[in-house]
């Protein structure tokens, strides 16, 4: 091709990042076709960018720690937080890092020594998956009380579980409330809320009251047959979100939405 602009290092990066106009992109492609070494290098740039993105993607969906939400709303930090962090910083990065490493190791050891707690946590995932598999295919009776009586449903379930429940709004995820039902759990009543998209994809939210205060956990994912479940434990109750229609990513984004709305 006559009169083409010389190709610079910056062009190769812009090409790898997909930032070029189609015409220029074609020029770079033609250029790379004759230079296998550069082509390989650029392919690696691309690939590592994809890996990097994938590696940190999950952070976006993590529940937001309350201290960050407070900071974002301009509320002051709690005094203890400031104090403990001041100590950490005074100790410097190296010591801080070593302490974190030790803490992480201790936590791993602790989790390994506590199979009972872990088992208990997976139990909720299994129960939520079974409840989902039983009721979500129902055409005529998917729920006991429909969304048209939402207030009644929420009051009823709250009373039976002894918790202040709320049916989260999931319009943002394209899901609307179908209704809910009361189910027997291993220690007491459990609430199940069912949601559905306009295309008929279903998702259920399973809520169980915890009578003893619990150690809170982060989001966990489990799969029972073809039902995916995200679950997490809070001090007074556990939640599980189950669906066989939604992908793991969709389910996680719904779980995050639910978590945000139900956070005490």
């Amino acid at each position, binding site marked *: 091709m006559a009169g083409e602009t010389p190709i610079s290092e910056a062009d190769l990066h812009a090409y790898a990042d997909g*930032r070029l106009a189609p015409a220029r992109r074609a020029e770079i492609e033609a250029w790379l076709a004759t230079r296998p070494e550069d082509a390989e290098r650029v392919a690696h*740039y691309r690939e590592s*960018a994809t890996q990097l993105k994938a590696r940190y993607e999950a952070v976006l969906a993590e529940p937001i720690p309350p201290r960050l939400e407070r900071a*974002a709303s301009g509320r002051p930090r709690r005094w203890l937080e400031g104090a403990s962090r001041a100590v950490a910083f005074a100790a*410097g990065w190296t010591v801080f890092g070593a302490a974190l490493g030790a803490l992480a190791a201790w936590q791993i050891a602790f989790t390994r020594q506590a199979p009972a707690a872990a088992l208990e946590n997976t139990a909720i995932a299994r129960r939520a998956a079974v409840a989902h598999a039983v009721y979500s295919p129902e055409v005529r009776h998917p729920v006991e009380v429909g969304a048209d009586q939402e207030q009644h449903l929420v009051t009823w379930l709250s009373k039976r579980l002894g918790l202040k429940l709320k049916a989260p709004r999931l319009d943002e995820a394209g899901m609307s409330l179908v209704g809910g039902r009361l189910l027997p759990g291993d220690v007491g009543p459990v609430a199940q809320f069912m949601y559905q998209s306009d295309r008929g994809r279903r998702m259920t939210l399973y809520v169980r009251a915890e009578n003893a205060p619990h150690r809170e956990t982060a989001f966990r994912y489990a799969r029972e047959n073809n039902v995916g479940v995200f679950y997490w434990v809070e001090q007074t109750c556990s939640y599980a979100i189950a669906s066989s229609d939604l992908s793991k990513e969709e389910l996680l984004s719904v779980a995050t939405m639910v978590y945000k709305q139900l956070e005490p």
Partner: protein
Amino acid sequence: MNEAERLVDLIPRLRRYARALVGDRSAADDLVQDTLERAWAKLHLYRRGTDLRAWLFTVMHNVHVNKVRATRVTDTLDDEMPELALRPPQSDALMVRDLDRAIALLPAEQRSVLLLVTLEDMSYEEVARALEIPIGTVMSRLSRAREKLRALMLGQGAAAKLKVVK
């Protein structure tokens, strides 16, 4: 939407960048918290209608640089000086560990450029503004970051295995 709500909305992205920048979760969240607090203190400097995200990343960059300066034993921010890697392995997947390790070994200045381009999808101009450096510097740091990453990823398979044994 007011600034507080927009700040809350941006938390996940700030956390993602911080996690990749700093390595471990709680240190990354500390950085995000400091950034948000600084942002509130400096909100009068933010010009309404301009890109709040870009402004926040500038704030975060400055907070991070100051922290590193204040807490670092060796005070070099030299491009050739690898930072201490403080990341505990978070997964058993060797590939992930290699990537984490490789990123941790990039000089801080190159790492920020690479992460803003890759994770935040910022244009090179936006990166230049966010980090307050000329665009030529953005390109040269990006180039060096990628070359170093490539060398580390291609060459460290054996080294990584040796590490695992311990």
